[in-house]
């Protein structure tokens, strides 16, 4: 495995091991952070999360679709500083509707089976984040950027 593959593999492993990420949106320039349960596709092009439509975050997304999501493997211990990996995903969010909604939800629920009732509620939206870039931090300060070629 060369270094470019290794770095992508590390991202996949992180996304598989972590259930939650911190979503950043904004309203009129005021940043706002929320916790979301996410699922990432194998090709690393998309992340998905589910949110009730009456939330601040969903409201914010309607006016500006640009988002950042932070996912990290820290465990709230001192060892995190040299051991944890942290990734910031930058991309654009859209609500998934129509026929593609169901197959994505199935995959989402495989990762988060306990959220079954929540995601199937008509008041919830399935949101797709199309990744533009990944910023990956390891060994405390080592930062790599991955930019998606479209």
């Amino acid at each position: 495995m060369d270094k470019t593959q290794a770095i992508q593999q590390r991202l996949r492993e992180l996304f598989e091991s972590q259930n939650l990420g911190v979503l950043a949106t904004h309203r009129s320039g005021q940043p706002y952070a929320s916790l979301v349960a996410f699922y990432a596709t194998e090709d690393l092009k998309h992340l998905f999360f589910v949110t009730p439509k009456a939330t601040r975050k969903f409201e914010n997304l309607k006016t500006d679709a640009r988002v950042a999501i932070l996912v990290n493997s820290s465990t709230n211990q001192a060892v995190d500083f040299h051991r944890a990996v942290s990734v910031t995903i930058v991309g654009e969010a859209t609500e998934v509707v129509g026929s593609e909604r169901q197959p994505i939800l199935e995959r989402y629920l495989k990762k988060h089976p306990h959220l079954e009732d929540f995601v199937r509620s008509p008041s919830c939206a399935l949101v797709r984040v199309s990744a533009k870039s990944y910023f990956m931090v390891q060994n405390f300060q080592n930062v790599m950027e991955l930019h998606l070629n479209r």
Partner: protein
Amino acid sequence: MNWIISAEDIRHEDRQRVGGKGYALTLLAKNGFQIPETVCISSDAYQEYVDRTGLRERIQLELHRKDLKEMRWEEIWDCATRIRNMFLRKQIPGNIAKRLKAVIQSRFKDKSVAVRSSAPEEDTAKASFAGLHESYINISGIDAILEHIRKVWASLWTDAALLYRQEIGLSVEKSTMAVVIQAIVPGDRSGVVFTQNPNDAYQGVIESVYGLNQGLVDGTVEPDRWILDRKTQRIITHTPATRRYWMVPIEQGVQLNPLPESMSQRPPLNAQETREVFGQALRAEDFFGTPQDVEWTYKDQSLVVLQSRPITTLSTGKTEDNRGWYLSLHRSFDNLKSLRKKIEQELIPGMIAAAEELAATDLSLLSDRSLAEEIKRRWEINHHWVNVYWDDFIPFAHGVRLFGQIYNDAIQPEDPYEFVDLLTQTEMASLERNRMLEDLANEIRKNHRLAEQLQKGLYAEADPDFQTRVETFIRQFGDLSCAVTGGSQCVQDSEPLIKILLEMANHPPAPGGRQKSANVEILKEKFLACFAGDQRTQAVEYLDLGRTSYQLRDDDNIYLGRIEAQLLAAIREARQRIENAQSKGPDASTANELEAVLADLDHSAETLNPYRMKAGATFDIKPRQLIGQPGGPGIANGRARLIRQHADLADFKHGEVLVCDAVDPNMTFVVPLASAVVERRGGMLIHGAIIAREYGLPCVTGIPEATALIETGDKITVDGYLGIVTIGTGEI
């Protein structure tokens, strides 16, 4: 939990907590051997200390900056030095210290003690850590004992120990350390005994010296040596030493003294005593179940066993590990002194002669076949000197490190590299050259006509006096397009030099080398004030050795560079011929032999960006922050100037960041133009870091892929405090 356990109270289940050495002493005591009064400080005390002081994660952060495998030995030494300094500067917290003090004071009162390492991993790993961690002999006073406990703890992280643990695959996160405190037995004769000769399973070996064992263990005092028959316990041979020195206890520590004449005439042991020593060791072997390496001493005719451990060097058919080499990185003072003699009188003249011999051959006159042979020959000669470099020059560099450790122990400075300032007092040739360059640039600054002529390329019309000065400079220092002074590939040409001078003249003069001569005197006084009497004399000698070692460290690279330049010249000649042959068409096969030899030597490889974009790849991967080692404090940003070849230096612009594989002394003339230095090769004592410190420039070293990932023109920020290089402007 009980951290402090007397040797007699240690039970089998404490084995992991007290380490191999501590546990072996317990067994000896319980089996009727006479051992010094001993207590063990279990590894729990170490754990408590690193947790309470926050050192646990600080150590891990230090060790995980980079993959240990990607670090050069010098970087690992730097890590070890920084970690050791953390231990020196963090006192044992109040209640831990209180507990230790109470027991140590009640057990040892005013007696001097030995503070020894006892690594629990030795047992788990079934590997010997002998010599990798520190032990301190003849320490007295409770504060000094506590300080030496910290030093023993710190020695868990020496460069040799880190390298060895990495080699045998032990996790650094689990490493821990127990300490053995023993009353000093001021023996009059001491030694070691191997119950089995590593070279002959039917024999045993005794080595013995007058005085304390330290001189024998660190190799400064030559021992008498006996080979004995294991079965009959009879002496087979006795090889007497030239008995000149002995190690004796002084107020704090030990000292090497000349041996009184009367003692030098007779061996430290008589025949009956060798039998007693060997007999005791065989008894230890009996109940430990494996051949033993036993340290012992005679005090007033009474034999005391200091420690016993399994012999790990017995030939078991397993591949040898490199512990021996790691240990050779640390040399005693006397050993370094004799190494200095060898280097100054034998090796450096040898390198100069080798380079001259090679330079005398006119490569263009050789046939293709002879050139191929010549390349192989040069490769071997270069290889030989590279080995010498590893075997003798690198260990000699320990003179700098030895001084650094003594300085840091005495001063406990905030900056563990403060001592370097004391070593650079010897003027480096490169600084003198840079001053001459600055004078020439100043001339151009003042003289507009001259500046104009030079800009138009009319050097020949310039003021004859200026021309003479330029030529003097070139004669003395080369024309700056030569990678190596006197390298045969150099064409004498003043153009690159003029280019650099014009660039310098376009900007105000650089502040120049730091004014620190006064500072050096203050540091020196501060350092020497920590010692009195004989120790002060020795401190002066350590400083002198450190300075020589520092200077040679610089010079050896130059001499090795000259030999390598001759190899490269032959390779270049071969490449040229291959190209010429190819341009003549497919029939010109004369160059085959040359192609084969170049392929053999694999001399075409160049570092490539491992993240470079491939067609159809999903991602474009770019580094943003690269982690290296902090080489010189400060922060600066500018455009990168990547130096792949020496000739690239001529394009260097004011304010650029010098990015290169390794700054060699022949490159440093651009440093006054640079805003920062980034180097692939790592270490605090490499030339780039030293010269950057000299000019007060931020410097980061030890970024393995620096020359592959950074391009000329990239905007980069160099954080020399933290050892971080940031590429780009941070747009999202």
